[in-house]
């Protein structure tokens, strides 16, 4: 070793057979470090871009043109918004044909309808507000004067308003054919009903199967085959579960899933495309995931705990019920809620089993026709009018809030049960 080499690389000690190369090793580490930071940043940027487009579409200026000015509909000086139900029905009767009126009556008798429902009908059929143009949040903020000039020139009748497409009525109104009036009430209810059924079916079956496979089943070729299949099923594309649901639940089990067997619905219109079919299909879809998650949670229970229990003369069931399940519960719950979050966002299988996209009546039970939030979003984004993209963006915000609150619930539950 020359003296100059020892000066430039003071840590190198080639004398004893080592070449520390500390600078190079640290440089390699630094390169990888920056690669990982970059990967994280790309992910964050993608997420921010998604949120940006959704938010920008959900709010912004809109030019609204009413076919009938609501001011002309005022009765004895009382404005339209303040009229009671009977007066609204009269306005409706005066404005639309008797045939359309009968159709509404047969969908749901006016006597049973709420004031809000009739008011929505009046808006939809009589006032007929029409959004003739809408602009994104960024345009609305930075090009306001240009937009005002454009509206004044092209739509002299229209009124330019700043519109939050995500507004209270958007959550409380059912689906409608005009974006101005459409809401996600029926879609939210449909999603909640479907998830409830999915949960009721998938949770007990999934946890039960996980307990059997982890605690009771021996190590035979059969259990290994079942295990492999469950793992593979977790990776099957969801549309295939849709085909399965269509064949089995919608077609083969139609008397059951359509509710005709129970006499719960009108026999003539009953078919298998119901919430029950959707719930069953989604339950099948998340079942493998749920079994695997629960199995992992059960497997993570330390062996020493089981031994302690058996050592006291506990039976296998007492050991499982008193020690294994309570210890595994936080993990099981977390896994379940993550699986449920996946089910809430599923669209493809529900399209296949025939979720309706235009539902104006609240689903009222497992045998109801339904739509769900992702289906509604999908259908709105496919429409040509720009305003539907606005309400689709607003619906995406609603869906994201629903998913985030579920995940928050998962974290809360886990923290609650891991502390005892």
């Amino acid at each position: 070793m020359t003296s100059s080499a020892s000066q430039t690389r003071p840590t190198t000690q080639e004398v004893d057979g080592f070449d520390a190369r500390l600078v190079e090793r640290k440089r390699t580490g630094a390169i990888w470090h920056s690669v990982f930071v970059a990967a994280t940043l790309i992910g964050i940027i993608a997420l921010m871009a998604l949120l940006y487009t959704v938010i920008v579409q959900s709010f912004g200026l809109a030019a609204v043109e009413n076919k009938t000015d609501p001011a002309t509909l005022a009765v004895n000086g009382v404005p339209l918004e303040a009229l009671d139900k009977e007066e609204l029905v009269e306005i409706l009767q005066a404005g639309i044909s008797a045939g359309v009126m009968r159709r509404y009556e047969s969908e749901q008798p006016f006597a049973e309808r709420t004031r809000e429902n009739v008011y929505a009908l009046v808006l939809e059929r009589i006032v007929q507000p029409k959004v003739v143009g809408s602009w994104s949040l960024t345009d609305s903020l930075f090009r306001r004067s240009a937009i005002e000039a454009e509206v004044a020139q092209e739509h002299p009748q229209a009124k330019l308003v700043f519109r939050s497409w995500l507004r209270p009525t958007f959550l409380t109104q059912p689906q409608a054919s005009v974006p101005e009036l459409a809401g996600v009430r029926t879609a939210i209810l449909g999603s909640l009903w479907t998830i409830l059924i999915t949960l009721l079916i998938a949770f007990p079956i999934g946890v039960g199967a996980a307990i059997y496979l982890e605690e009771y089943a021996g190590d035979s070729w059969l259990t290994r085959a079942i295990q492999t299949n469950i793992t593979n099923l977790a990776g099957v594309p969801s549309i295939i579960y849709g085909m399965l649901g269509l064949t089995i639940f919608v077609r083969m089990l139609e008397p059951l899933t359509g509710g005709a067997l129970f006499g719960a619905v009108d026999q003539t219109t009953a078919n298998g495309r119901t919430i029950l079919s959707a719930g069953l299909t989604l339950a099948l879809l998340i079942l493998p995931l749920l079994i695997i998650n629960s199995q992992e949670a059960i497997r993570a229970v330390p062996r020493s705990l089981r031994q302690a229990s058996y050592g006291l003369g506990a039976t296998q069931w007492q050991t499982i019920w008193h020690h294994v399940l309570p210890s595994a519960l936080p993990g099981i719950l977390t896994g379940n809620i993550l699986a449920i979050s996946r089910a809430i966002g599923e669209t493809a299988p529900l399209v296949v089993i025939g979720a309706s996209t235009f539902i104006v009546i609240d689903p009222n039970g497992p045998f109801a026709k339904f739509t769900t939030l992702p289906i509604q979003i999908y259908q709105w984004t496919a429409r040509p009018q720009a305003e539907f993209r606005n309400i689709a963006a607003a619906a995406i915000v609603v869906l994201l809030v629903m998913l985030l609150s579920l995940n928050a619930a998962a974290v809360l539950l886990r923290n609650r049960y891991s502390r005892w």
Partner: protein
Amino acid sequence: MVGEVCFVNNKSTNEFAIEARGLNVFYGSFRAVKDITLTVRRNQITAFIGPSGCGKSTLLRAFNRMNELIPTAHAAGEVLYHGQNIYAPGVDPVEVRRRIGMVFQKPNPFPKTIYENVAWGAAINGYRGNLADLVEQSLRQAALWDEVKDKLRQSALALSGGQQQRLCIARAIAVKPDIILMDEPASALDPIATLKIEELMRELAQNYTIIIVTHNMQQAARASDFTAFLLMDEDRAGTLIEYGPTRQIFTRPKDQRTEDYITGRFG
């Protein structure tokens, strides 16, 4: 022998608590313990010593059928408890394990309160007496009562390692066993906690038969009445080399291999 088997308690007439006859334990096709025959005396402390892997823990677990929790394990030969072979068909391992309790190497209290830890075993075994009294009595016997009497409703995991191990002993006592098997009960503890456990074993030996596996030869010499020395044979199966009163094993061993081991020449 079919159906329920009862273990008749006749302590006065029986000098032996439990007896192994030609006992072999297998893991799959591997024989871990080979042809063990030994009798364990009532109300005495018997220590199993030997180098790592000699099968002493496996032998200990064979006395309450704990090995059966490992799917591939099975036993051949007899273990006689009150004259009844616990491996006979019709004998329920659950019943065996209540009579022959166990304390493990690492303290493993349930993640529950101190009270629940002691009471649970009795409760699931259908104890008809007053649970609170039983808990107090068991904790007193385990020399833990004074330390925990004010925090019975607190988590058992908040106790120190030595306290946790004594809680595990209290938990084992609470189901009123005959025999307590201890698998290196002090190996995870500091010397002071170890000493407490040894003193406690001496106390408990008045009412219970204790079998202890230990790596620590000083512990066996200090705390046990009888000592069994095990060693792997050429097939790696554990065999009993020598068994006798502890004093004799440690002062005048009959077998050269025992002498080599206890004098620290190997192992």
